[in-house]
């Protein structure tokens, strides 16, 4: 029994226990304990994070000539760590006041099912991360898909249901692409074991690799929600019940990235991918994927800008941030890959924190609609603080951790000589900054609405995980080396030179980064500013929230200083709505096509004369067969025309 066995077995047993005990009140505490223990088991494997040998599970299944096996390497360990930490914080978050309220509003059963969905998600993700060959990868992949579907389907609203259906259709399409790719891989390389497939890949020609890469990229890309498969994700995640959205938003889609790194970077190898030229373009396949990443950073981010609901805004951001990771990984040098992988960790922390703050706001006010919020900073200062820390991270501004990973990606783009991609990434970041401001402004700033006068700070049980995450965001921002250790180990595991780093940041000949220093300078700057301000006699004056003017008019209690509609009207006018509709229309066209085909087929099955079909098929089959035969008379040969093989 290896530690991996312990971990998987423990999680599986815990799932069973939670399924059985889901209706009891103590389930929320129980699940927290479960995640703590699981994290402890994971930490027992922490040697992996510092370059240790892969841990194999002693459990294998022998089926259809395949040996299914499970193992953890540094990359899996890194992702598993994020998963378990996020799950732990989520469980903590939902164990207290939020859970009580959810239980009261819905039912004990509904809350229990949320816990079940959470543990099943964690379990399936661990199984996926532990996969040791392509078949077990696929099994884990499908388990993750269905666990996510279960989580999404827990919200009985119509919008949520539709989103869940849409998700699972997309996910199935992706899974089928992966299954096709796996079947082809098996026939091309004769095995599904990672090592043997890796060796087999060397013998394949470029067109085979191109087909495989496209299929894998489509399959994994759908889960990540990259362009053009981004339409399902935001609604689905946003409509997941509160705490569920925290977990899903933070980590679920990143499983796509894990599989992508594993298969395309580690097994196929980016050098092979880069060798494939896409005809009629200047791009090779690696660049094309990088561009997909870049577009994914831009388009969903600007869609996020248009959202009028905090949950949707965050969820759209989640899609966009996935683009950075793909972009980073696709740069393929040690800095870019490190940026991409590290961004997973950073993103998970601040996205979880942001969803928690939004959930806390919903908990207190009952809405996440921007038009009905505003000015909550006086009522919920700590939540506000957490949100500010998180959006600084999200926007990639020092000293939070988001800055480090984005800096790595930018740096890699510049060093790699990709100015266009760099510009694209910057445009994406710009959109991020604009939209996170919209988030914080419309939720916490401005004037408080009358109905929110007696809103209080979020309860302690919700604040603790939020603050904990905020501390992590800041700490890993100041000392990125902690995370970079794990990232470097993961890089070694996937066969890329590890990034050179120290506790404070990156060591680079062309100019490194030391966050301790940066932070020091920043705080020094703040201190200087404050000193100057107070020294020169600057006085702050406390002004009541309602005490402000707009356009020379005093704002009455009826007209609040708050405008969430047409928030960035000018910008919106500039970019217009053109980009979004393309994809929606594309999706619609696809559905219409299926519908049309289906109607055609249905008419076929309504033939009035049953024998007609028999006659038709006999004639066509005989024709096909006789035209294929060389000895048939000339007339039959002549008939074959379009039926030629």
């Amino acid at each position: 029994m290896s530690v991996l066995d312990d971990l998987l077995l423990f999680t599986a047993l815990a799932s069973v226990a939670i399924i059985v005990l889901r209706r009891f009140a103590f389930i929320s505490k129980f699940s927290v304990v479960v995640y703590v223990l699981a994290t402890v088991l994971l930490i027992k494997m922490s040697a992996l994070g510092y370059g240790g040998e892969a841990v194999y599970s002693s459990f294998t299944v022998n089926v259809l000539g395949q040996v299914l096996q499970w193992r953890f390497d540094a990359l899996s360990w890194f992702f598993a760590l994020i998963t378990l930490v996020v799950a732990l914080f989520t469980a903590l978050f939902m164990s207290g006041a939020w859970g009580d309220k959810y239980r009261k509003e819905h039912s004990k059963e509904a809350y229990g099912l949320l816990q079940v969905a959470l543990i099943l998600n964690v379990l399936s993700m661990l199984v996926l991360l532990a996969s040791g060959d392509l078949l077990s990868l696929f099994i884990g992949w499908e388990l993750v898909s269905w666990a996510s579907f279960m989580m999404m389907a827990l919200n009985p609203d119509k919008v949520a249901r539709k989103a869940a259906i849409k998700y699972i259709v997309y996910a199935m399409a992706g899974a089928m692409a992966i299954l096709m790719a796996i079947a082809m891989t098996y026939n091309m390389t004769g095995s599904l074991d990672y090592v043997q497939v890796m060796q087999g890949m060397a013998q394949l020609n470029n067109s085979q690799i191109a087909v495989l890469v496209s299929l894998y990229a489509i399959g994994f890309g759908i889960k990540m929600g990259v362009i053009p498969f981004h339409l399902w994700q935001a609604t689905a995640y946003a409509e997941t019940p509160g705490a569920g959205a925290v977990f899903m938003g933070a980590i679920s889609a990143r499983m796509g990235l894990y599989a992508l790194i594993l298969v395309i970077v580690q097994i196929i190898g980016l050098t092979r991918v880069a060798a494939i030229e896409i005809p009629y373009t200047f791009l090779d396949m690696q660049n094309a994927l990088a561009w997909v990443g870049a577009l994914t950073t831009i388009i969903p981010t600007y869609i996020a800008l248009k959202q009028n609901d905090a949950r949707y805004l965050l969820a759209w951001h989640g899609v966009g941030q996935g683009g950075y990771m793909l972009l980073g990984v696709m740069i393929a040098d040690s800095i870019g890959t490190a940026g991409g992988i590290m961004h997973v960790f950073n993103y998970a922390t601040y996205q979880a924190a942001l969803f928690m703050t939004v959930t806390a706001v919903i908990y207190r006010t009952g809405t996440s609609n921007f038009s009905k919020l505003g000015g909550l900073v006086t009522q919920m200062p700590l939540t506000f603080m957490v949100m500010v820390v998180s959006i600084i991270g999200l926007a990639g501004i020092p000293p939070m951790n988001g800055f480090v990973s984005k800096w790595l990606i930018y740096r890699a783009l510049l060093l790699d000589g990709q100015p266009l991609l760099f510009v694209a990434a910057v445009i994406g970041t710009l959109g991020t900054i604009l939209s996170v401001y919209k988030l914080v402004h419309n939720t916490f700033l401005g004037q408080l609405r009358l109905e929110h006068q007696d809103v209080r700070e979020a309860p302690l049980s919700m604040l603790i995980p939020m603050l904990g995450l905020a501390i992590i965001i800041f700490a890993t921002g100041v000392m990125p080396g902690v995370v970079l250790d794990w990232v470097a180990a993961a890089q070694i595991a996937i066969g890329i030179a590890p990034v050179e780093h120290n506790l404070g940041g990156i060591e680079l000949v062309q100019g490194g980064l030391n966050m301790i220093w940066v932070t020091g300078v920043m705080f020094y700057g703040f201190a200087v500013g404050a000193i100057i301000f107070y020294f020169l006699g600057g006085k702050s004056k406390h002004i009541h929230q309602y005490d402000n003017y707009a356009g020379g008019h005093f704002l009455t209690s009826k007209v609040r200083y708050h405008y969430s509609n047409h928030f960035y009207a000018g910008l919106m006018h500039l970019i217009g709505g053109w980009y979004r509709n393309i994809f929606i229309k594309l999706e619609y066209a696809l559905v219409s096509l299926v519908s049309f085909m289906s109607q055609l087929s249905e008419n076929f099955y309504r033939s009035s004369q049953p024998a007609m079909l028999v006659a038709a098929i006999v004639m066509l089959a005989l024709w096909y067969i006789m035209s294929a035969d060389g000895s048939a008379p000339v007339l039959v040969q002549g008939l074959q025309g379009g039926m030629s093989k």
Partner: protein
Amino acid sequence: MDNIVLLVVLPLLAAFLMPVVARSSEVVARTLGLSVLFISIGIILNVWSQSGQIDSQAVSIVIGGFLPPLGINFYVDQISLFFALAVPVMVLLFWPWHRATSIREYSLMMLLTASASGLILSGDLFNIYVFYELLGIASYSLVAIQGRVSAVAASFRYLLMGSVGSVMMLLGIAIIYTQTGTLNLAHLSLLAPEKLNNMLGLASFALILTGMGVKAELFPVNSWVPEVYGSVSSNLAALMAGLLSKLAVIVIVRLLILLFPQPEALQLMGMLGILGVLTGELVAWRSRDFVRMLSFSSIGQLGLIFLAFSIPGEMGMMAGIAIALHHMLVKPALFMLATGWRGAVENLSGVARRSPFVVLLFIVLILSLLGIPPLPGFWAKYLLMVGLSSQDGFIYTLGMIIVPLAMVIEMAYLFKIVMIMYRKDNDEPAVNNSNIVDDSNIVDDSNIKVVQKHSKWGLAIAASVAAMLIAIVLQLQPASDKLLSLANQLSDRNYYISTVFPQIHTVRMQSIK
């Protein structure tokens, strides 16, 4: 071993005697049929336990004391024994308890049993035709007596299609007979490379495929499926979709392996299979009625089976058997669930709240049907995909694209139902579908009968199927070994020939040649 023949004979005897016995005692007549089914099961289990070698060794049973090819023989190998066991078991499971209209209906069920067993066991081409026709007529009759006149109309259309098909099959048999002068499958197989490996042989395959295809729900000759399944009781639909179609498929495959070695034959079947998958799933996506949806999904699944069997080599054979057996388990269970859910899917709104366990069962079944790992359906699909990708031809590449597409469509409509089931009661009005042309077509609510109660028996069947699926997951390794040996035995021509004509008979064989 010889009493395998009783599997065919005893049900026939019971069928003949039941109306006679019923004149004096109805009860005895009813028990007669059931007891024969139990005896059949007993015989097979006895054979299985007695001769452990059946796992490795097939047996040819001579009827009438005339050695093949002169006489007719039954060929018993693993797969035919398995199906011969499945026949009485499934007939027993889907016995029409609830509608005791007439003793003759039970008689028809017994005839169905006999013909199904005969079809799978028979080793003679014309004998197969006879049993196929018996199966056909028994099923036309059973469909037609389901009460409403719509069942009669559906059955008549089925009869037209089926009998034109079987005439075509007879034509095919006639062509084969003119070419070879024999009817025994093993003997034909011996002669096939020499005599049937030409255009005439292929033409007869096309004719036989069309004829058998009617019952096997092959693509263009399956337009009876939605009409018939829609108008019969779920029990019968389960039996037909689950068992009878598979029997026809297995017979087609056996003929294909033994008589028609040409690649064109495989391609023809594969092409029709692909079209079946595509159209079946597409129409199912559109249908608003649960049973109709299941019928079209059944067409799609049968298309998959044909496609799988059209892949040359071991992988295709395994995939075909796996999908066929899996569908044989799952589809009847789904039809059993449909007993409670007849009617428009919109009416299922909120079912999950009333019967959560049943809906959970439904989800497990459809997950397996869709091929979600680690349920057994996945392994079948995986084999199919690997088999498809191992071949080069245009048809296999097309199949590679169509099959995943069809799976996505199937997922979409099945989970649309699940979501409707989990909807809150009456939280929105039933969606008017766009097909409604004018008011005259809108159906009165008074006619809509949605029985929201499942029979306990049907639920028990569905639950045991689900349990079986999970048991297979837990026993993957032995199951895959068994599948491999089944596939090997089914695809081995020479083994078939040497079983029917062991060394002792060669002397006589020479004299015939």
